[in-house]
């Protein structure tokens, strides 16, 4: 049950579009910076399969220029 956080960089002038695309994905939480072209993305998936599917969806977002990972958390099995 992985929770991960990333810094997401939009292509020039496409920050709003990126916010909207990411926010439309159920597994994603988005926190835009107010004074920079940068968003924080937190993903929360049930299992590795869902995580893989989400990765495919993120790869397809055209306004996303670069995604850099910051942290990852593994929740214990008995937390399910």
């Amino acid at each position: 049950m992985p929770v991960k956080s990333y810094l997401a960089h939009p292509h020039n002038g496409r920050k709003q579009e990126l916010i909207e695309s990411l926010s439309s994905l159920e597994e994603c939480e988005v926190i835009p910076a107010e004074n920079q072209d940068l968003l924080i993305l937190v993903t929360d998936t049930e299992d590795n399969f869902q995580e893989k599917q989400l990765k495919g969806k993120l790869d397809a977002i055209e306004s996303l220029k670069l995604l850099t990972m910051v942290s990852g958390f593994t929740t214990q099995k008995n937390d399910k």
Partner: protein
Amino acid sequence: MYTSLTNRRAFIKKMAVLSAMTAAATMFPGILFASDQEKNLPKGGNLNWKKAPCRFCGVGCGVMIGVEDGKAVAVKGDVNSPVNKGLCCVKGYHSVIAMYGKDRLTKPLVKKNGRYVETSMKEALDLVASKMKETIDNHGKDAVSIYGSGQWTIPDGYAASKLFKGCIGTNNVEANARLCMASAVTGFLTSFGLDEPMGCYEDIDHADVFFLWGNNMAEMHPVLFSRLLDQRLKRDAKIIDFATRTTRTSAAADKSILFKPQTDLAVANAICYEIVENGWVNESFVEKHCNFNKGITNMGYGLEDNYSFKDKPEKIDFAAYKEFLKDYTPEKVEKISGVSAKDIKYMAAYYGDPNKKVMSLWCMGMNQHTRGTWINNLVYNIHLLTGKISTPGNSPFSLTGQPSACGTVREVGTLTHKLPHGVVTNEEHRKFAAKIWDVPVENIPAKPTYHTVEMFRALDRGDIRFMWIQVTNPMVTMPKLKRYRDGAKKEGRFIVVSDIYPTPTTDIADVILPSAMWVEREGMYGNSERRTQYFEQMVNPPGEAMSDTWQLIEVAKRMGYEKQFYYSEENHIEEIYTEYRKHHDNKKHNMAPLEVLKENPGMQWPYVDGKPTKWRFNSKYDPACSNGEEFHFYGKPDGKAIIWQRPYEPAAEEPDSEYPFWLNTGRVLEHWHTGSMTRRIPVLHQAMPHAYVELNPGDAKQMQIKTGDMVKLTTRRGEITLPASVNERGVPTPKQVFVPFFDENMLINDITLDSFCPISKEPDYKKCAVKVEKA
């Protein structure tokens, strides 16, 4: 504290947000987020965060490990680390999961009548010591050997070198960094007289142009590549990818230039030709700080047993060097390399522009090369001719693959010819080491024995009878693997393997010792930018698993070396590190004391007067400079660096009518080297479950091969069948195929060639001839 699952997940998500905000604040000072997002963020909850260098690659990111109930459960980038400034890649994040695979080795196993039987650690170590003694008695000291790793911690490598070279008295000490970094070492030694980069990662924040020489940084050094991309976003820095295969790095670069395998030698010379021809030489720098040399050519490729080579450097002058470069006009080199004269001039113009700061970065492409030392020399030539070296942003930078290839193998000196300070061939260096080790100087033999390939050949021949392998998996990584696997299995060989999981290498072992991994013990790694990083023991190793350092100490004591291995169980890491520092007690290499390492996210050497040295050989930054000039290349007796005349020569085995393709091998983002750890991390294993063969789309079309079709590869060493990958992650140039080596079920090294650079003895995994057929 957090009893409800909903609460716990919400808490964890807030922690994730906090990590990201802290990283963002490091990368974009003054960045603001909506204030309602910032309130109620947790301070750390019941997770205990502790700092460590990442377990995996040589970038050496600082990470924070979250420990809960005795288990490591979370990883985040350390915002205090100048290496990664809070970032972390997919491998780094998953590193803690690698400790908890179901089939961790937890008990020693001894082979009896063809089957492995569990035993106690005490008995296993008794057996290792007695077998080693018996082998020495029957076959001599040079019949025992140790083969370690760039994933050894500094104390592991130090204990191994002291035991084998100092106490037993054999130079049969090698490490897998021979397979990845040896050409970088000989490149540095021949050009500058001292190993390791003069610059540091901070160069990235100053450079205007980044040249990547055969270096797929996006996959292999992802966090550093993010830093490059960040500089492009902020300052419009340019990234130029110069490679034999189109990769994720090429896709992200400003320009991708492809060359035919091995011809980087010719292109580097053509860049120098252009620099000279256009008057871009920094004349005063060259005059004050450089000499010109040439060496022996047509050196061969080390294909035969007992091959030996010694270069004979000969001084030349600038005029002779200019004459030599005339064979490398862009137009002539276009024909050899497939790189257009226009692109060669484009690259040369960046290097030649006095207003552009240039960083060259490379890793396996230049090192795993039958002329690896030469191509390292040639890239230094470019930087020396233009004086673009040892200043912020002007930096030829050789990256490492493993977390402590620099810290352990290169600095501790766990190679046959090396000592922690200096080389075995130098009497003064032997005396110096013997004094610190408290052994008679006669113990340390003056002659190196076997480099890695020759060591496995010696095992096959029977010259070596006992080999102890720690933290590495040579039965996946040796080139021309079948010969060495068969050799290791021969009667009368005794193999000990220390590892954390079963691998093809534990399959050939007579004794398997379970090792403690990374933060299950205490230690240090040293990364690519001369940064030594300490980590404490954070969790307990499983079962009877024991650190490699302590395994070596236990065996040393059993062999009668209690005096030299006086270390205590509680403090042995500190005791070893303190002793090790004595070898480097000088302005050129001083290491920071342990307290400093504990307090900081690593510290760079030379550490002088309480300060790290960021740019060596530059008197503004480096207290070891003493010639009164701006630069001092003090590794050479006259203080001058060397510009080498090195020609283009073909590879050991080039495509022909029978084997018409090039075979190139390498790594993938998801897996750490042979995959023994990352294949046990479900998400990484699922993302990249098996090896494949990448084909050029034109070749694939002609052979009617689609992604997923089985393809048979045949070389003079054997054959292998793998699924095809066309137009996916990487695209090789026409008539070239690429296969990753991480998959123990598809051992590509069974068919690679064991040719190596005659100077560095590092094998070329990037080039041999192969036949490609639809299976």
